[in-house]
């Protein structure tokens, strides 16, 4: 597994190519990229600042990825999360999973995103015409994470 937290942008194509690395067992590659949107909850966003808890973030992400590997047969995982100052349109996060079959790749990728959203200590502060404020956690993110049952299915 490869987990990185960084200020720098990432090259999506290069990351996906590296993750595949010509392994002929791989039949499926599922990836998710999150971007800074220009509108959030009706306000236009001019800048996004991402703060994190160094050390705990890496630990939390490693635990989430391990949980996914225990539930599904996956070949490889790559997680990148950016921190610092970002602009609308910037890439924020990448989760990519390879596996023999598509079911495991889809499920593990979405599972990792759902848990990252509720368990990994990152916080967003967005700047709008009304000033800068910390983004509130979404109830929908909590319910997305709790729908995963211990046997790896979704409720």
């Amino acid at each position, binding site marked *: 597994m490869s987990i990185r937290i960084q200020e720098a942008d990432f090259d999506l194509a290069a990351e996906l190519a590296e993750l595949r690395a010509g392994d002929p067992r791989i039949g499926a590659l599922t990836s998710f990229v*999150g971007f800074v949107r220009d509108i959030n909850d009706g306000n236009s966003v001019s800048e996004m600042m*991402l*703060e*994190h*808890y160094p*050390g*705990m973030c890496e*630990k*939390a992400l490693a635990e989430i990825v391990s949980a996914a590997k225990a539930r599904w047969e996956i070949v490889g995982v790559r997680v990148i*999360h950016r921190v610092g100052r970002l602009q609308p349109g910037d890439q*924020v*996060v990448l989760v990519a999973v390879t596996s023999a079959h598509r079911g495991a790749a889809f499920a593990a990728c979405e599972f990792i*995103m759902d848990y*990252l*959203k*509720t*368990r*990994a*200590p*990152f*916080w*967003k*502060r967005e700047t709008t015409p009304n000033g800068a404020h*910390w*983004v*509130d*956690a*979404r109830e929908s*993110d909590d319910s997305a994470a709790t729908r995963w049952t211990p046997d790896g299915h979704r409720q």
Partner: protein
Amino acid sequence: MSVRILYFAGLREAFGCPGENLDLPAAVSNVGALRALLVAQGRDLLASAKNLRCAVNQEMAAADTPVADGDEVAFFPPVTGG
């Protein structure tokens, strides 16, 4: 007994500092008691913050999670990454 306290996001900003070192009286042996002590020392936001989260040594913790000498105890709002 001494612990390292960390604050993140809105808490860090409101307190104007990323954390503090604290000598704990023997009676303060878990997260709930530590939080009450900090509130008593003027960190009011730790009482009023909505859905305050806490981690001890970088693992999510609850009010009854023990706190021991040398621990790193972090307080922060619900996470919003991704």
